[in-house]
């Protein structure tokens, strides 16, 4: 077991400590922000077995590139941006693999996952199947705003786009997701909480 040293200080001091490789700074960075980063990653990817590896990647990358952070007040959003970047990279890698697997039909079956063992998992799988069909930018907009619950400015910042661009992506994503989800009976109880949105949209 590794016992972390403690670092005490505000965000500005923490960033400075990270840059000077203070022995307890990495641990403090993780303790303060890991839960939020994990939430962002799982919102983007769903219940994915690679979440631990990806979470580790985000923090290794952050520690390696902390010198590039210009404004310490952006630390949280900066980490969220790295998480978004990492999640997008993973999704792209998987898309490439799926494309390559077309040349190896015998491998296609092996990519199937074990059947989900609970109703909630079944619904989550359907939800993320629907998100998989969205363009990547729109998928990320939906994940950050709707599932992660980020504010619009924070989500736009994490994606590295203007607020207007993010809003356009989000509108397209919401529409596409809802239209597809309404065709899935399993999601009907999950969507029931969304009737207000549906009615407003129809109205």
């Amino acid at each position, binding site marked *: *077991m*590794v016992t*972390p040293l403690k670092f005490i200080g505000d965000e500005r001091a923490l960033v400075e400590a990270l840059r000077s*490789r203070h022995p307890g700074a*990495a*641990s403090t960075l*993780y*303790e303060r922000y*890991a839960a939020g980063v*994990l*939430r962002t990653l*799982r*919102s983007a990817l*769903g*219940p994915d*077995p*690679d*979440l*631990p*590896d990806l*979470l*580790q*990647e985000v*923090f*290794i990358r952050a*520690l390696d590139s902390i010198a590039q952070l210009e404004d310490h007040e952006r630390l949280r959003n900066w980490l969220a941006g790295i998480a978004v970047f990492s999640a997008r990279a993973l999704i792209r890698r998987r898309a*490439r*693999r799926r494309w*390559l*697997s077309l040349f*190896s039909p015998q*491998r296609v079956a*092996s*990519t199937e*996952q*074990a*059947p989900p*063992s*609970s*109703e*909630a*998992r*079944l*619904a*989550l799988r359907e939800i993320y199947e629907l998100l998989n069909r969205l363009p990547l930018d729109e998928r990320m907009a939906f994940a950050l*705003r*709707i*599932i992660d619950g980020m504010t*619009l400015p924070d989500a736009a910042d994490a994606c590295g786009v203007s607020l207007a661009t993010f809003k356009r992506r989000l509108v397209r994503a*919401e529409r596409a997701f809802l239209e597809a989800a309404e065709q899935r009976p399993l999601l009907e*109880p*999950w*969507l*029931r*909480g*969304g*009737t*207000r*949105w*549906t009615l407003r949209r129809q109205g």
Partner: protein
Amino acid sequence: MDSPKTGLMVLGERIQAALEVETRPAEVLREVQLRLLEHVTDTRHKARAPSFWQARSAALAALGLLALGALVFEAWPRPISFVTSSGERDAGDVLSASEHAPLRIDFSEGSLMVLHEGSSARVLETQPAGARVLLENGVADVSVVHQQGRAAHWRFEAGPFQVLVKGTQFELAWQPAQEALSLTMKEGSVELSGSCLAKPQLVARGSSVRVSCAKAAPAPAQAPSTAHETPRTSTTAEPSKPERTAEPRSFEASCESAAKAELVAWANRERLAGSLARARTALLALRRRFPESREAGTAAFTLGRMAFDQRANFAEAARWFASYLAEQPDGPLMGDAAGRLLEAHERLGDRASARRDAESYLRRFPDGPYASRARRILAE
């Protein structure tokens, strides 16, 4: 500025709540923290090596087209599988060794578990680099293989205890009647946690540990009533002496004044951290104080799942699942509750109830995850 919360945002919250349950964030955070600290320690003691991303980019460039071609034929990571000496079984099935012979369970990545005579366990789920196993009763000899380049994700559960494994050999025994767990390490190390342990303990090679928790308050004889539940308050453990002063009582007192959302968060946090008694306290308080809420129904389901998975108390589990179905007949966990209800009745030997549950389940979920079990019950 943000518009008022829309229905889609409510859906998002429900997705997030389901993800919170399914992704075991407390476990992931703890595991990655250890890995990250080891990484930081390693890099600090080495000459400044190329950064992770530089090294990765260089490796990718060097592999080039070779990697591209290899990818076509590479087997993608997928959950491991397992086979027993008495045939193939699915995740969730009961694996029972007879009274006269052990049962061998071989996992596809090389790990092995041998159940001693009369013991039973279930592989609850499998992942690309591990599995979650529930030892329901008896003794299991376990040998976990550490795959090169991939962190192992093995977790064994027995009653209120969890054993987090990296790559090791050990013997695990669980006696539900005494709520007693014993663990003998042969190689490597594991992290042992449980509701009656003050904090997770590292158990290393050559060590032998025996731990027992005091019995929980008896389950309600009738359908669970939010007004008469007595949360479990006292536990004992050995060899460690848990730091039990006034702290558990203050947790109960906090539950009496906490907001609904806080109770939900506390219950999830404690459950995922392995503190099942405190999770139960929070869930019971939630049901007692907010009986009409959607969260109270979900709490019934969670209580049922804890009784089923952690304590193998199928009678109590069945009552909680039935409560959930009565309170939220169209709730998002309805299918799972119905499936687990039929399984609980089957495990209790209550064939009439199990058949009734199976018929009801198949009417609503002919292709659901419990459909094959339901058909088997009806065919018997």
